[in-house]
């Protein structure tokens, strides 16, 4: 730690996924790095995002497994969700990873500066009066939950993911405003924990950024799980009542719940930090950058949720690494954002990489596609999960997109990541018979079918 300022090759503002990845890679490349953080190393993802939500989701999986154990011949009695125990487990995972990360940053000789920083010039950040000069600067201040006009988060009845992650009880019922990744994941957790859940989404589908068929499969699975949703009508107004919250939609319907989770997106943290003063352009709060993530001002770059690319931790990692290598003159290949895998860790999971069929059509690419139903996949039958793997390829060309729904499919998407990014042809994947019995075979079968040699394909 340093409280006295100094001069560095690289000064990074914010130590979340984007910031710390840039710090690690830059230090590997021989740069002297200052990493400024006002809260905790690891940022949103580690402390208030990816990790704690996935711990809750796993506790939910455990609860579901117990409730359904009889199906597998295992007799057990589900008792209760012990929220104190859940938090203990979740916090233990987070603190273990936090300890690891702290050690990692230290072992790289990175100077960690605790405190709130502000850009006070094109080449300097000031923290509590101490000035950190950087030959290069990376802005990585991330994002925060946003709300809608007329919707005030009170932290009690109307909450964001931040409060939802530390709730000391399972709500009897919950309204979730927003059917994107975060909304859907909390719906899944709370339902597994026993709550009545209603998702309200203004667009016509849950996880609306996904291939439409994936949205539909998720909706079918959620319906089966007893998760309710109201699609296609925007939020109109909300009032808190004695017992909870009552939400009115534009179409006049009202939805009641013990609490309301607002999950309508995350805004960049870019106000009052001196960005615009040095000439950095913001759009809807997002820092604007070129394809090398350069802001156009001095040697200032920006990465992660702060810029208008996919708000995902691994995008932050990739961007952080990219910027460090770019500054070091390594001439790294620009990131193909279509090739970034997306995973929604609900039950069932939704995962994809590459483009949707809609996007392919917009780009004027003629495509072929194949949907492999998990009903034909032995391991999925063993897990008793439903869903499908859809593969989209250019006609006589490479694979353009992989879209999956089903328990545990999030782990299958990296195979799709290689296939998409390496522009493999269906026939090249089809040649490699997948291990039996695994869920990954469903991906193999879809490629076999696209290559004109279906194996286990039922009509």
């Amino acid at each position, binding site marked *: 730690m340093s409280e006295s300022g100094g001069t560095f090759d690289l000064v990074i503002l914010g130590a979340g996924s984007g910031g710390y990845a840039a710090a690690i890679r830059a230090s590997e490349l021989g740069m002297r790095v200052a990493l400024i953080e006002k809260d905790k190393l690891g940022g949103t993802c580690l402390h208030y995002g990816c990790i704690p939500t996935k711990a809750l989701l796993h506790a939910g999986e455990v609860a579901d497994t117990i409730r359904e154990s009889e199906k597998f011949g295992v007799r057990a009695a589900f008792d209760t969700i012990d929220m104190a125990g859940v938090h203990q487990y979740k916090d233990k995972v987070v603190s273990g990873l936090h300890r690891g990360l702290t050690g990692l940053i230290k072992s790289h000789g990175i100077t960690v500066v605790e405190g709130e920083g502000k850009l006070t010039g094109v080449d300097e950040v000031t923290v509590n009066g101490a000035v950190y000069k950087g030959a290069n600067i990376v802005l990585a201040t991330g994002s925060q939950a946003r709300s809608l006009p007329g919707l005030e988060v009170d932290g009690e009845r109307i909450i964001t993911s931040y409060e939802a992650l530390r709730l000391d009880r399972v709500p009897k019922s919950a309204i979730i405003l927003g059917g994107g990744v975060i909304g859907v994941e909390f719906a899944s957790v709370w339902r597994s924990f026993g709550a009545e859940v209603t998702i309200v989404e203004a667009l016509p589908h849950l996880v609306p950024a996904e291939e439409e068929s994936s949205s539909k499969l998720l909706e079918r699975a959620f319906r089966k799980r007893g998760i309710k949703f109201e699609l296609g009508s925007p939020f109109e107004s909300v009032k808190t009542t004695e017992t909870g919250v009552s939400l009115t939609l534009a179409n006049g319907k009202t939805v009641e719940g013990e609490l309301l989770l607002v999950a309508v997106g995350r805004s960049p943290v870019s106000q009052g930090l001196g960005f615009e003063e040095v000439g950095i352009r913001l759009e809807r709060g997002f820092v604007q950058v070129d394809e090398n993530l350069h802001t156009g001002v001095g040697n200032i770059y920006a990465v992660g949720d702060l810029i208008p690319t996919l708000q995902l931790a691994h995008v932050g990692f990739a961007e952080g690494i990219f910027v460090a290598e770019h500054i070091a003159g390594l001439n790294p*290949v620009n990131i193909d954002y279509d090739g970034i895998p997306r995973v929604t860790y609900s039950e069932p999971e939704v995962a994809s990489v590459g483009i949707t069929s809609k996007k392919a059509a917009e780009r004027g690419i003629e495509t072929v596609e194949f949907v492999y139903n998990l009903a034909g996949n032995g391991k999925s039958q063993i897990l008793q999960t439903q869903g499908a793997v859809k593969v989209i390829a250019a*006609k006589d*060309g490479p694979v353009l997109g992989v879209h999956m729904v089903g328990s545990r499919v999030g782990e299958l998407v990296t195979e799709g990541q290689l296939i998409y990014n390496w*522009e*493999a*042809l269906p026939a090249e994947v089809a040649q490699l018979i997948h291990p039996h019995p695994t869920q990954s075979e469903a991906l193999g079968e879809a490629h076999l079918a696209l290559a004109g040699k279906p194996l286990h394909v039922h009509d």
Partner: protein
Amino acid sequence: APQRGTRTVVLAKPPVRKLAKDLGVDLHAVTPSGPNGIVTREDVRRHAAQAEPQ
């Protein structure tokens, strides 16, 4: 840049094809040295190096 999805098939393993694209090498122009006429990583590198000196 070559448009994704408009490529006729040249035999090369996918990462090699990707390397060629990243280096701006047209696989059709590369002389293959691998088994079954497959273009190898070395073929692509050699081709890129030859195209370089300007």
